[in-house]
């Protein structure tokens, strides 16, 4: 017997992220084949880039670009970030206002759509949207008063999101499990 006895495996105690706050971990997402220019001023632009879709929702980069002649970074101030709202064709909306972040109890799921911006800063951030849109126009609208970006929007055919959702791949289907 070895001098060094291994302790029993102790499972991590960290709580799991709820299913509505992330894409399914056991899937590779489908890709929407376009990037959207949502806002443009003389000095700034806002892109929706890298739209990756799962059957439960989609995530994307909210990318702030600066004109090469005006590359100065702003002083980042908490609470002064770019405001983003996503609107479904049926009138439902979700935005990145943290004050509207839900606090469901137990296994209760919040009503989609729900927008969770996991990173935020002068370059924009990364966004997860819980819930797939119905067919029709899907609107991305933004507004950034501290950077003089007026209310602006771009529209995507939600069919592109729905088609990409069907291409998401399950990594370990039950019939090939080890």
């Amino acid at each position, binding site marked *: 017997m070895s001098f060094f006895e291994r302790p029993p495996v102790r*499972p991590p105690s960290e709580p799991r992220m709820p299913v509505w706050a992330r894409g399914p971990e056991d899937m590779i997402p489908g890709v*929407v*084949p376009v990037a959207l220019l949502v806002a443009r001023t003389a000095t700034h632009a806002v892109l929706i880039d*890298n739209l*990756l879709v799962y059957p439960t929702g989609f995530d994307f980069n909210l990318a702030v670009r600066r004109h090469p002649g005006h590359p100065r970074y702003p002083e980042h101030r908490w609470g002064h970030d770019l405001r983003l709202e996503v609107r479904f064709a049926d009138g439902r909306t979700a935005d990145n206002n943290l004050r509207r972040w839900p606090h469901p109890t137990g296994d209760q799921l919040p009503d989609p759509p729900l927008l969770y911006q996991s990173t935020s800063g002068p370059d924009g951030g990364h966004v997860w949207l819980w819930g797939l849109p119905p067919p029709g126009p899907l609107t991305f609208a933004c507004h950034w008063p501290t950077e003089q970006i007026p209310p602006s929007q771009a529209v995507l055919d939600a069919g592109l999101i729905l088609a990409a959702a069907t291409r998401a791949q399950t990594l370990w289907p039950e019939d090939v499990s080890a």
Partner: protein
Amino acid sequence: VSASEPPEPPELPEELEPEVQYRRPAWVEPPADLVPGIVPVELILARTPERAIGLTGIRAYPTGFGCTLHLRLREDIPGEQSTFGAFNMFGDGVDPAGEFADYYLRVGVGFADGRKATNLDHRRDLDEIPAPDPPTLWLVRWEGYDRLAWEVDAWVYGLPPPGPLAFVVEWPARGIPETRVEIDAGLVLEAAARAVPIWPDPTRR
């Protein structure tokens, strides 16, 4: 400057600002003034009973392309999380030829003319002069959640020549042999040609 605006930093006088402002070089990130063309690739590069590596969403520009790596664990493996040793790709002081080399996930791209870029390449400084020859591979964003999933955005500086474009991974210590998935580089070249200027008026430069 009105009283309601923040004062300019004294070390950046207004008239010198464009010249003195630090800008990251082209091999570090996509050009700021283009909307990329997208190649909707959805690849599973490697899959074992415990782990998987996917690659999606090529964003193509005339100077190179970005893509997203998806690192996945099927179940919790205490102590491992889902980083796949990936953090060692970003840290200083890592010797990829050293004793722990087999514990790092290796990621790379291979061009049809034999050129390649991997995360084991010599680490470069952002202000390196002259700029490295393409291709180079730079990891621009990483984000993990819930221990099972990790997303890494990579920027490949330099477009591939026509022919097969290979994405290669290997992780010796975790049972992932060298695995290569190829796509037609023409898809990336066509998407790069679809990149659109955000500010099309050149007199604004």
